[in-house]
């Protein structure tokens, strides 16, 4: 479904990603683990086109996308949920969703307000609430819901558990599993191994912009050394 091959990315002169390769198959939840500053968000941005990779290939459903504009990539059915959430604070919940809305896409679930309200009951209760007057957890739900309105086949989910209350983290995990059951592929970035273990099938570990580990979630949980070396703080 989604495949990165030897991606290099820069901010100005700073070489941030080197030879990053990874793959997400249909229906899979894959987690990209790494400490703060390891390059997880940059990887996500390189996929959606907000950072243009200097070298390497990104393939999504057979199409080469590394040089495409973000909006074109999004229209292929690749959804992006940024770490900073970036919801539109002046817009209501419904308006935020409207911005993300795209036409239905064959072969993937189609989302509307009713379905969103079922996935995130909290949002269902506040259709007219401006984005700026929501709690962090509600904003996190909104940013995911907004991306879902584009009916994506695959979602890039950048640290959804960061900075939200434990009860919301549980809801996020449930939502991810629900999306997976509907056949949406997910690339998740995380620092939190426990959260990842709850939802992911496979894992990559990134450190200093390089992939250091790749394997199934079970393999990672058995590999205390990798955990210690790349994830412990």
């Amino acid at each position, binding site marked *: 479904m989604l495949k990165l091959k030897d991606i290099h990315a820069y*901010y*100005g*002169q700073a070489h941030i990603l080197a030879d990053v390769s990874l793959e997400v198959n249909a229906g899979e939840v894959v987690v990209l683990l790494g400490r703060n500053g390891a390059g997880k968000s940059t990887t996500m941005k390189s996929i*959606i*086109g*907000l*950072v243009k990779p200097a070298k390497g290939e990104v393939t999504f459903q057979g199409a080469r996308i590394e040089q495409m*504009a*973000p*909006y074109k990539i*999004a*229209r292929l059915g690749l959804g*992006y949920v*940024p770490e900073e959430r*970036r919801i*539109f*604070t*002046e*817009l209501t919940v419904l*308006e*935020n969703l*409207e*911005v*993300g809305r*795209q036409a239905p896409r064959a072969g993937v679930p189609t989302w509307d307000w009713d379905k969103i309200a079922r996935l995130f009951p909290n949002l269902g209760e506040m259709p007219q609430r401006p984005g700026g007057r929501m709690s962090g957890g509600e904003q996190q739900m909104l940013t995911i819901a*907004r*991306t879902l309105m*584009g009916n994506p086949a695959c979602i890039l989910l950048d640290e959804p558990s960061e900075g939200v209350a434990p009860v919301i983290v549980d809801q996020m995990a449930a939502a991810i599993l629900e999306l997976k059951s509907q056949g949406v592929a997910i690339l998740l970035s995380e620092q939190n191994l426990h959260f990842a273990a709850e939802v992911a099938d496979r894992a990559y570990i990134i450190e200093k912009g390089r992939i250091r580990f790749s394997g199934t979630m079970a393999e990672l949980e058995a590999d205390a050394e990798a955990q210690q070396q790349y994830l412990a703080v």
Partner: protein
Amino acid sequence: MSVDALLVQFLNGLAGASTLFLLAVGLSLIFGVTRIVNFAHGSFYMLGIYIAYSLTARIGGSVLGFWGSVVLAALAVGLLGVIVECLLLRRIYRAPELFQLLATFALVLIARDAALAIWGPEDLLGPRAPGLKGAVEILGRQFPQYDLALIFIGPAVLGALWWMLTRTRFGVLIRAATEDREMVGALGVNQAWLFTAVFGLGTLLAGLGGALQGPREPANLGLDLMGIGDAFVVVVVGGMGSIPGAFLAALIIAEIKALCIAIGTVHVFGFDFSFSKLTLVVEFLVMAVVLIWKPLGLLGKPSAASRNSSAVEAPLAPPDKAAKIFGYAVLVLLLLLPVVGQMFPYAVVLMIDILVAVLFAASLHFIMGPGGMHSFGHAAYFGLGAYGAGLLMKQFSMPMEAALGLGPLLAAAGALLFGWFCVRLSGVYLAMLTLAFAQIVWSIAFQWDEVTGGSNGIIGLWPAEWLNQKAAYYYLTLALTVGGVLFLWRVLLAPFGYALRAGRDSPLRADAIGINVFNYQWMAFVLAGTVCGVAGSLFAFSKGTIAPDVIHVGRSIDGLVMVLLGGVQTLAGPVVGAALFTWLQDAVAREFQYWRAALGVAILLLVMVFPLGVAGSVKRLLRRREVAA
């Protein structure tokens, strides 16, 4: 003052508010979404009034014909906006803010000459609106029917815009893009299309504002700069990107203006103070007060930090050996000029102008490039220097040498005062506050007849005996210009300059390592203002006459063009740019009626082909050669 007079002025204010709102709202809309500060907005307004004039001349006799012409004119201007967006702006959305300004300013020049070619230099007053030619009586006073109609049109347009922004998908996308356009793109919205539509809508509104103004004031070639000045003020006071803010600001400014007229002249402490004179400057006073009190305007919101990951600027390099040799060679040529140039006395005169321009531009570059403060009102300090010298000589009977030496102190004082307010702001807001102060200075020079000579200015400012020869004055100018420029460069390459650039690039970090960014920027402002004042004083004695136009916004813009033409990222940029600009203006303007348009086209080419400016591009070319060799 009677109640009826006050009421009529209040209604006048409402009509004025409608006009101002229509003029400005499109600018705010465009800025909100595209982050382009469209200098050409006033030109679209001007074209609206001209096109409506031509249309009403043909079909405007009937009610339907008149209003049809207004709508058609607005649509035509909107279409023009769409074309401009597709051909030009699309290419420069990622360019530095200043380049966008320069490009849209080039459009101003081109539009001005296009209007001159099509409609000629005369003022053209359109027919009055059929059915609304008369006046209604309000408390025994006559009030024009058309103005009454305008009072309703402004809020009606506001209502229509409001409906669109809140009830349509297009409107929701506009509001979302105003907050975070990159995210809108990442959600699958084609920004290119959205930007084109918004630009078209914004220019359409400007055209509508112009077309509606047709029966009230004659179409003329000065409306572009007048329009953009007013529009900027309204947008900045209201908060950039805020549409209700634009309405509120238009209302406040128009009503205060009307109130000033209603009050007229009052006697306080034995003085006559004419409030109606304030109308020329009241909007800038309002803007200055609002920006000092609310730096983002009345209803402005902090915009999401620009996420353009543009490359970091390379540090300023001290001149290398080759550059120094080149510099000395130029200096020798300049020293020889009066000797060689005896056959062409005009060369010396032109060279004085060029040197003054170089000093002016170098001082602007000092705060703009390394300081990161884009002043739109640098002419204020030029003018203060010129008037300082002039007043010291005429009002205080000082000898010319003393006046020349002390005149710049007035510019220094102005920079000290204005800078203290300006450096608190940044970006467009700072630019607008500098513009406001410059307009205030201009209007004082223009209106304080007893002291400044009003619009006639000060005449008879001749240099002392020993400087009477053009060649002698030339050497003086050369010495002060070279000295001034070298002084500024020296400061930029000293720790002061590094601190200044640190403050520009990362104010928070600079503060954290103990650099007081505010003080550095303020000092830089004062230094630049003082050096600019020297240029102004030199200018005064080189011409013998000064008038308020030395402070005019046109001069401030010339300075910007010079700096950008040369390239803002190099030390030599402003020198090259000022010389080139002044020479071009002199050479082309005398030969070619449409020199403005020619300059505009040249600027557009420059922006597209040499985005680093002339000096910057040459430098990069040389460096490439070096790398290749």
